[in-house]
């Protein structure tokens, strides 16, 4: 043997160092909720995002990326700590957060450090109106839009008298206000439930007493499953239709409620059956990779990854040196969205179509979403005009 072990090691180390230098990946901080009952949401967001990365072979827009995935456990303080640590390590591009309360804690830190944040889901009004920021983008929607589109849907369906239910916290109250901002009929009652309530028998009795044409409710996750099951069990489901944003009856919740969701009306900005080539390809690719149908969370997350990819391509992956050019490229939204049309309003939130879906059994008798009609074209959130940028 002519080579000593030491030489071999030195050569190995040198080549390793070289390859690292040749293609320093762009690091993307992906904070999301992977534990707690809401963990399935983060799982779908992660999988949607990583699908786009995998499809390109660990690249986005031709630029090698390293996605640093962390669980925020739905705790704002946790998430902020993780973001602080990543910022210290030099990460300047962040995404992934699902919950508005977590986002509100993290985004300002990222923006102050000169970073860029692209939201896969949560989009509170905080950053949509006066508080809009050149470094903050939402590739999903703005929080008001899923409930004000439900108000429009209720008008279209001809419901004159409605009862509204939501948990007593910020997002719940926002949802009811959003609904009321577009709904033209009479609100018979607003019922505030406890966050994460498990039993709804009392509320159901009140609904029966008020005899509305329909109800609007916003209960994502476990509380929504409870409500849907008990709504069906009480017999109300046959006489009083329900309208909810898609997030109160996502695909996982639908699977957890058996037949209870049958006939629900939902509003969404994306659906698996949306008729465009990009969407068909995405749904197929997702099913092939993970063996299940994608949710809205996965779809907007996939869009986010591809949006980021389009901007990375424009600046050759230099998100810090060419920061302003990177942001300008994001603003152009030069990517093929699974939603079909996609562009940003001045507040860097989407201008997009909203659809009315109905839960119906498909040919095989399994419940799924069917797009009924488009209820809002090129919908802009109400905060956009307040944004001066």
């Amino acid at each position, binding site marked *: 043997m002519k080579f000593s072990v030491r030489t071999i090691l030195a050569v190995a180390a040198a080549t390793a160092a070289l390859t690292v230098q040749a293609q320093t990946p762009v690091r993307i901080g992906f904070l999301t909720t992977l534990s707690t009952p809401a963990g399935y949401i983060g799982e779908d967001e992660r999988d949607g995002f990583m699908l786009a990365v995998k499809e390109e072979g660990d690249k986005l827009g031709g630029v090698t990326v390293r996605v640093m995935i962390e669980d925020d456990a739905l705790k704002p303080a946790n998430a902020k700590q993780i973001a602080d640590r990543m910022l210290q390590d030099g990460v300047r591009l962040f995404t992934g957060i699902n919950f508005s309360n977590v986002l509100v804690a993290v985004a300002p830190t990222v923006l102050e450090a000169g970073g860029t944040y692209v939201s896969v889901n949560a989009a509170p009004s905080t950053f949509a109106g006066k508080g809009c920021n050149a470094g903050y983008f939402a590739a999903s929607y703005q929080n008001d839009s899923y409930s004000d589109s439900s108000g429009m849907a209720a008008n279209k369906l001809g419901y004159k008298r409605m009862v509204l239910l939501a948990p007593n916290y910020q997002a719940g109250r926002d949802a009811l206000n959003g609904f009321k901002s577009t709904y033209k009929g009479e609100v018979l009652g607003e019922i505030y439930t406890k966050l994460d309530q498990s*039993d709804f028998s009392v509320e159901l009795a009140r609904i029966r007493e008020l005899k509305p044409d329909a109800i609007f409710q916003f209960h994502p996750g*476990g509380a929504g499953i409870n409500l849907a099951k008990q709504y069906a*069990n009480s017999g109300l489901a046959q006489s009083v239709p329900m309208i909810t944003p898609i997030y109160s009856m996502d695909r996982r919740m639908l699977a957890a409620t058996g037949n209870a969701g049958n006939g629900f009306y939902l509003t969404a900005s994306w659906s698996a059956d949306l008729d465009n080539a990009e969407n068909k390809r995405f749904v197929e690719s997702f099913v092939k990779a993970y063996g299940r149908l994608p949710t809205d969370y996965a779809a907007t997350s996939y869009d986010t990854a591809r949006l980021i990819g389009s901007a990375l391509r424009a600046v050759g992956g230099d998100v810090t040196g060419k920061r302003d050019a990177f942001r300008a490229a994001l603003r152009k939204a030069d990517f093929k969205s699974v939603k079909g049309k996609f562009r940003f309003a001045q507040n860097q939130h989407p201008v997009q179509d909203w659809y009315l879906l109905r839960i119906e059994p498909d040919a095989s008798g399994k419940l799924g979403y069917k797009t009924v009609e488009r209820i809002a074209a090129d919908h802009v959130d109400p905060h956009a005009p307040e944004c001066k940028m």
Partner: protein
Amino acid sequence: MLKFIEQALNGLQYSALLFLLSAGLTLVFGIMNVINLTHGSFYMVGAFCAAAAAAATGSFLAAIVAAVAGAGVYGLLVELLVIRHLYRRDHLDQVLATLGMVLFTNELVTVLFGRSPPFMDIPPALAGSVELLPGLAYPVMRLAFIGAGVVVAVGLWLLISRTRVGMLVRAGADDGEMVDALGVDVRRLFMLVFVMGALLCGFAGVMSAPLLAVQIGMGERILITAFVVIVIGGVGSVRGALIGSLVIGMSDAFGRAYIPLLLGRLMPSQLSDPLSSSLISASAYILMALVLLFRPLGLAPARH
């Protein structure tokens, strides 16, 4: 009047759930002097086992067996591996260890069953509603829940007041050291009580699964209410757990039904809606504070 009866039934159903959970909790706390936060996890384990068994066999009976057996076996394991070593430790150690077990159980269930909440249907025999009075239709599943609560309450009463084991349990709640000194195998008694509590949790799990979301962490929220129940009823007393469950269950149902209406008459709805929902959330704790103020040992304490 119909509304009042319906809300009373709703209250009874919630009381039944609380009783199934708190009966075991109060005995473990009262007799073994162990604060067991894992108690809620047995409820979750029961519900997940029930949903899995129902999905595999389609039979509600199989779901009941799976839930009770699953929760019982898990309870036994927890007692043998963890709780057993905590009897002589102080409450802080117990809280830390059992809280750790809660987190561990959540992850274990996630690994075994996945993150998506599974579905469990209402068994056909209990589906739909019956007309109890003209104009008052009530879901059969909820009536069955109330019935199950009554059966368990009667069964526990017979067990505790009429059997030798029950006598030991009562004696243990009164004065554990004396029972020990009299030559009773306290360890076995403790294990029995602990597993019995877990069995009841498993049963509560299978009864809840068709009505509620079967999900990770479902036990923790209700556990807090169960602790309120045993404090109101008196620690260590099954009768206290029954009374506490009824107090909390009824006040919750009537509170949710009538507080918004009352406050709605007193003030504009923008003010009354959020205020009443806060008041409803706090009502259990307000009740607990009142009971502690006037009856610090609870409404029906085990004798000391």
